[in-house]
């Protein structure tokens, strides 16, 4: 019986104006997405690869001296662009694409400061005076278009039948009400997803036939998950549509309620809530960081001047301690600021989860390997590599028996050149299991939303008076 009703709904929908319009809209959006991706992605990959090679060359040119390697650090580390950039752009223009190891000379003595990882401010391109736009990625198509379409397919499914009087007819038969509801739900779900699946297929066809962009097995798995999330998200809005439609007498009123809810939750809620939530905490500002760094510097230099001047060896020992101590404390300070900033953003993001649109945005970002969570992964990779690099320096120095093992002083370290190949390489990786872990709670939250809305739609429909 369910199938019977679903089939009836489906035929009704397929012949309707809204289905045709949906088809045109989704196809247009998805084609644009594919074409733009094919235009931009090869250049993005090319830029990443050439930057990585350049950075590596700079690093290897320092291999003559272990001291230089130790002081100047690993140079620039680049974030690997995701092949699924077209699924979710994830505000990548606002996140820096690299972290950089900075170093500078102190202007007294011949002691140099050690490198430290800097997380450059992700200033949006200041030369860009083009108008602001949202990227047309899958996240946009799903988040905005698909949800609106889902509402348009269900707003009149109960109230419309009641207006026309057909609801009385259906319920006069010996069909349980939940069967009717599920039938309607399935009918709408299938008709929405026929057009969406078709649009997705054409999008993927265009992208995968191009030789410039290659999608691996992992990427296809991710696309599958993204499609599943889109399905869940459609269910959510279909359920919402059914709920309102069952509660309200007239379909026009139902649509007004649904549209206004949609505008509030999908268009405005995420950014307004994020702005409100980010106002609750204020991380260390750049000026404050500067002041505290100078404090550390002054304190260490004072100690240095007190203890030096006895013998050359002791001076070197004190110098080595100064340099390493400075690096440790500066690193700690910079990481503390980074942590505070990350916490602020994460708090804002978790509050925006009231809006299902934001949840889906986050989910799509994590599975597409873009956006904020991905950026955090990249930062973690870079920090891990930083430690590995420091260990490499110490290890190399230890193998040289002539060295005094005073890291941070030129004469105190191994004088042998280092083999360029031996320097560890930075490999930025994307891992699906990690992404799944970060996304699990959001996925559950989304499912919860769907279940709650579906059951309340059921309750509302059971109590409907014809």
């Amino acid at each position, binding site marked *: 019986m369910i199938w019977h009703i679903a089939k009836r709904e489906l035929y009704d929908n397929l012949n309707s104006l809204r289905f045709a319009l949906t088809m045109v809209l989704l196809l247009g959006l998805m084609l644009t997405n594919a074409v733009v991706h094919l235009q931009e992605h090869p250049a993005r990959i090319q830029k990443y690869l050439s930057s990585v090679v350049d950075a590596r060359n700079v690093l290897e040119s320092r291999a003559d001296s272990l001291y230089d390697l130790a002081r100047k650090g690993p140079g620039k580390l680049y974030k690997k662009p995701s092949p699924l950039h077209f699924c979710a752009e994830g505000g990548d223009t606002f996140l820096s694409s690299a972290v950089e190891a900075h170093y500078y000379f102190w202007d007294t003595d011949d002691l140099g400061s050690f490198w430290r990882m800097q997380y450059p401010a992700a200033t949006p391109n200041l030369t860009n005076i083009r*108008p602001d736009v949202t990227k047309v990625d899958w996240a946009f198509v799903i988040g905005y278009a698909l949800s609106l379409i889902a509402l348009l397919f269900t707003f009149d499914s109960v109230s419309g039948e009641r207006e026309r009087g057909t609801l009385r007819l259906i319920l006069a038969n010996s069909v349980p009400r939940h069967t009717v509801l599920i039938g309607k739900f399935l009918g709408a779900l299938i008709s929405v997803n026929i057009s969406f699946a078709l649009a997705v297929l054409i999008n993927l066809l265009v992208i995968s036939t191009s030789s410039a962009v290659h999608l691996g097995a992992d990427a296809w798995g991710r696309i599958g998950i993204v499609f599943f999330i889109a399905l869940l998200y459609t269910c959510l809005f279909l359920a919402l549509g059914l709920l309102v439609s069952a509660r309200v007498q007239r379909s026009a009123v139902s649509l007004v309620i649904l549209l206004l809810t949609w505008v509030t939750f999908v268009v405005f809620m*995420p950014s307004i809530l994020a702005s409100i939530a980010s106002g609750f905490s204020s991380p260390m500002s750049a000026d404050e960081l500067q002041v505290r760094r100078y404090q550390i510097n002054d304190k260490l230099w004072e100690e240095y001047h007190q203890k030096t001047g006895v013998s050359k060896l002791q001076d070197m020992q004190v110098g080595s301690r100064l340099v390493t101590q400075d690096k440790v404390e500066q690193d700690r300070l910079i990481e503390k600021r980074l942590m505070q900033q990350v916490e602020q953003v994460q708090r804002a993001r978790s509050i925006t989860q009231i809006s299902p649109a934001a949840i889906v945005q986050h989910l799509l970002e994590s599975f597409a390997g873009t956006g904020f969570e991905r950026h955090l992964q990249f930062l973690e990779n870079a920090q891990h590599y930083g430690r590995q690099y420091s260990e490499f320096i110490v290890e190399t120095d230890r193998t040289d028996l002539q060295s005094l093992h005073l890291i941070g002083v030129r004469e105190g370290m191994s004088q042998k050149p280092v083999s360029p190949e031996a320097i560890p390489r930075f490999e930025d990786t994307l891992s699906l299991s990690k992404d799944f872990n970060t996304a699990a709670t959001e996925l559950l939250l989304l499912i919860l939303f769907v279940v709650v809305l579906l059951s309340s739609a059921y309750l509302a429909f059971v109590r409907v008076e014809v």
Partner: protein
Amino acid sequence: MLMTLIRRELLDNLMTFRFAAAVFITLLLVVAATAVLIKDYERRLVDYNTSVETHQQNVRKRQTYSPAIVRVYVDRPPNPLSLFNVGLDNRLGNEINVSPWHVPSLWDAQMNSSDNSFLNIFSSIDIVFIFEVVLSLLALIFAYDALAGEYEGGTLRLVLTHPVQRGYILLAKYISAMLCLLMPLLMSLLLALILLTTSTSIYLTTDDFLRVGGIILASVAYLSVFYFIGLLISAVTRRTSTALMLSIFVWGFLVLVYPNVVLATTAPQDTSAERGASAFGQIKQIWEEFDRERKHFLATDPVPGEDPMFDIDSPDGWGAGDGFSENRLTLSYYYWSVLYYNGKLTEESLPRVPHAQNYYGFLWRQIIDTADQTWLIRRQTLEDIFVKPALIDRILLKLSPVGMYDAATQAWTGTDLKGLQDFFDAVRQYQRTVIAYLYDREAFKSRLWFASDETVVDWDTLPQFSFERSSIGTNTKRALPDLLLLLTINVVLFTIIFLIFIKSEV
């Protein structure tokens, strides 16, 4: 007769659920957004004030010209009307160096902000954006059944049995719906203004209120365009359900899809990179010519010694440096030079001092001339590479009423490209004033340029930067084309609807 019709329609509309919902949702969104925006503006203002203070301190604590001139910065204050339409206001740089070695432009500005830069991933919302999305939707919701409903219900036939002109019916529907739609618009703006005036850090002048009036005007025109679109659909389809469906899709296309899709497909061209590279080469060449002349000057000079210091020494410390600085992306290339001594000069240095004075007098005249010369090339190229594509984008956006409305309101608030360019023009003007001031005092060839052993610079006479946002007349002139465009569309749509309605059979 018209009054009776309007009264009937108005009562019909006011008593509906959609009117209550419209008022509620607009008020809610605008108030929430305004509260957030005010806080954001206040933070930007604090940043601006600290930044101005720091920059002034940096200049004032120097005793000689050279190290201070390097540190003359101008800060861009946040625009209080950016709450209405933020435009480019917090996207472009807000502090800019006005040292004489380059002509400052929009592309040389830096961003100075105490904010957590990660927060940029959340898009910001201004009041006009809320109107753009919500008001257009409401206009369509009010319009979809205005004619189709009457066709279906058969009431139109009833009305037309009376001796009423059809134009009157249309006009009555339009006026009453617009009155209903104006209510949420005006109420929410009023609330926003009340919130604004309770904030202690935002001062709105009389002109600002007039500009807000301009925004209201643009909003009304925008609303009316969407109401007419809805009415047109309603008149053509004659069925409420079809009209509603079509309206929502048209809305989704015009408001959400079109602006994003059209800009995604117009990517910047590769030719601009070549154009930039060739201009950069020219600029570099001019500066190399300058460098040859500089070296020639030094070579033909009677006193030996190396620039930039000429072996002048001071026991109290000094700082010196010079060199070329470049940024290929913004086509910036210039020669910089700094020299200062912290106190007394050594005895043996003194004979060289007039010589250094002579050199710096020559050098800076050259630098300023060369900077002017290269600016001509640079301005033209920047215009071609950055401004022209941006203007084309804006024209493409204007194919949707949303783009026109956005452009018109940005022109009123002064956060559009022209408004921002006004600021940078003022900065260039200020730099001219500073250079004239320095010439006037013969600062470049004075001993005070680098040495403070005899006197110190009195910074109180240094001209101060001040910037007035463009006058309301200029705003009007800039907003007028888009406003007129919106009005034209209104008239055209009304005529079409009128013709369809006149000819239609009941």
